[in-house]
């Protein structure tokens, strides 16, 4: 009877290939992992810190102080006009 599992095994073993980038797009489903468990060394976190520099994932300071940028420049001109008229 144990040979009966073959048909079931196949789709499982194909999973890793299905995860390759070309099919990444637009699958809403969170797929089952092909393996049950993995050690800390194989995690995303470990690979991030293994590169030496701790991964810089998030920008906390993004406030725009660039007065030369178009939007700011125009806003500045506009506010000057307000100043002059009041």
């Amino acid at each position, binding site marked *: 009877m144990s040979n*009966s599992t073959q048909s079931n095994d196949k789709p499982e073993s194909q999973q890793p290939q299905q995860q390759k980038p070309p099919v990444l797009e637009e699958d809403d489903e969170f*797929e089952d*992992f092909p393996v049950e468990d*993995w050690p800390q060394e194989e995690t995303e976190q470990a*690979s991030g810190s293994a590169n030496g520099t701790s991964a*810089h994932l998030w*920008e906390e300071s993004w*406030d725009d102080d660039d007065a030369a940028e178009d939007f700011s420049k125009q806003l500045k001109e*506009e*506010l000057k006009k307000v100043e002059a008229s009041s």
Partner: protein
Amino acid sequence: MATPVLDRFLSGIDNLVKSRDGAKLQDFLQIEPPLSDVYQQMVAELRQRYPEGSPAEADLLRRCEALVPRTKGSSSWTAFPTFMKQYFTFLRDVNVENLLETYDRLKGLLNQCVLALGDSQFGVIVLPTVLYLSKVLAKLAMGLDRRPDLIAQILKLEGRSDQDDNIEKVTLVEKSANVVREAFIKCLTDRSGTPGIHGKPEGKRVGIYLMANLCLKLLFQCGKLRNAEQMFASISAQSPPLKYFPASQRVTYLYYLGRYLFSNNLFYPAQIALQSAYDQCHRQALSQKRIILIYLIPCNIIMGRFPSSQLLQRPESEGLADKFLPICRLIIRGDYIAFREHLALDSPANEWFAQKGILLALRNRCEILVWRALARKVFIHGGFHGEPQAQARGPPPFLYLHKFESATRWLQSQHSQPLNGTINFASTGHSPDAQAGSNPTGSQLVHKLPDHDFAGVDEIDAPDPSLLSKFADFLSPDTYFDATGHSHPNSPGTLIETTHLLDYRQYELNPYADAKPSPMMRELEAILASLLTQGLMRGYLTHKNPRFAIPGARLRGALPTGFPNVWLTISGRESDDDHVPGWVQPPTQTIGLPGGGGGGGGRVVNLSGARPVGVQ
């Protein structure tokens, strides 16, 4: 009529039950086509020897009953033989051409298996089988869910009405979730070993997160997230710590938990759960990492933390920069009209976000950050930044709000002129929000469709006949009461005379009534007040001669004081409580006072629960 294959199969099952080999048992109990030849042979034997509806079926049940170990004194495991018989009849009768019928049979089979799981002594043997059947059922239900046409067709053949069809369609996945939840509860409430936070995944408890994850998958699929709340509460109360479970279960669970928290607007704990899911994910699991990022990124954006280029260049982030960077740029720029347009109902960007279930959160939560950026820029270019000498005791830095209003009107004018030329506003040139400044009523900042319930109220003085007939009982009742409370008759069809009603304007109590701010100014003040309340701006507003003032800015400067860092503000406020509801952590190492229990020397004593002497 010999049944050699069935005999062999039953004796195999018998051995597996005796040796309590749940994994192998599941391996034996195949149900998904294509079944191998041995199973085909067994099905043929079943059809011949135990045909549907024949008295021989009772014999089949008796043979299954022989599988259960009979122990003196304890009740035998009756649910298992019933399950086995149901398994055989499932194989014998199932018609996979009829998916809906297959679904019903499979659900019945799983139900019975869950009953078998409930046994305190033997239940754990069928845990892998419960998981297997749940997965097949989930797959089938979700497959059917994607094909409403098929369900409608089948139901029509069965002669059920359209209304039933609708009910059936939405509940198929949910029904499966309910069965899976039963299995989850059986796992969670296993009484053997140590339960709760001090326990380890043993016995049926090994299945807690396997079943929970499957149930959550189904609940997300059918949009019944609310039903997950009780699950998370039960897990918090009864589950061993998550860290003792395998990585795949941890990551999957934290992903669903994070999404659940996200959809409940609990962005900070959601961010912790999702970040941890991402960190613990296998580095090669690109598809999973990507899906986690789709929720982790907006979660951070909402709290004022944008994805770095480093993050967006990773293979799992492919294409995500195109989705999220425009939003970040619009927030930084401070152009609220362009921001609203970008995520408006008819925008091209809208659909992807809606499909992922993050559109409304982004639209509703990020706009305040856009306003903050605009206020900040107006202050930079139009505000009073304080006396040049730090010692001078001048007024604090401030911004006249009429400049903020002018900037807003200018922004609206920019968007109402197509092909402006000098600036690329990425505007279609007919943004409804850009016209809001000239709205006769309602918001001066954003466009809102008039409420249908109030349509036509302005014409009450000369109502059109349809309005009059529709609201006759209100506009022309038989009798009415005047201002002094006296009843008056009214002839049919005549409007109630209202001109003699008192004019209360002379009794105005508002001290600012004389110099009324423009409606737009009122809205802008409300927005700034909201920013101040949330701590995203610091200072105060004056209403008369409207200003935003930034006191205490000598040391650090007006800009950092008045417009503190968004992420630091939010995370500083939220990190007081790092507890993520639904995520069971190992108990903190609390030990008695040194010398109390002995052996406590050198270890950290947690006194957070200690009270000062003499306090009740």
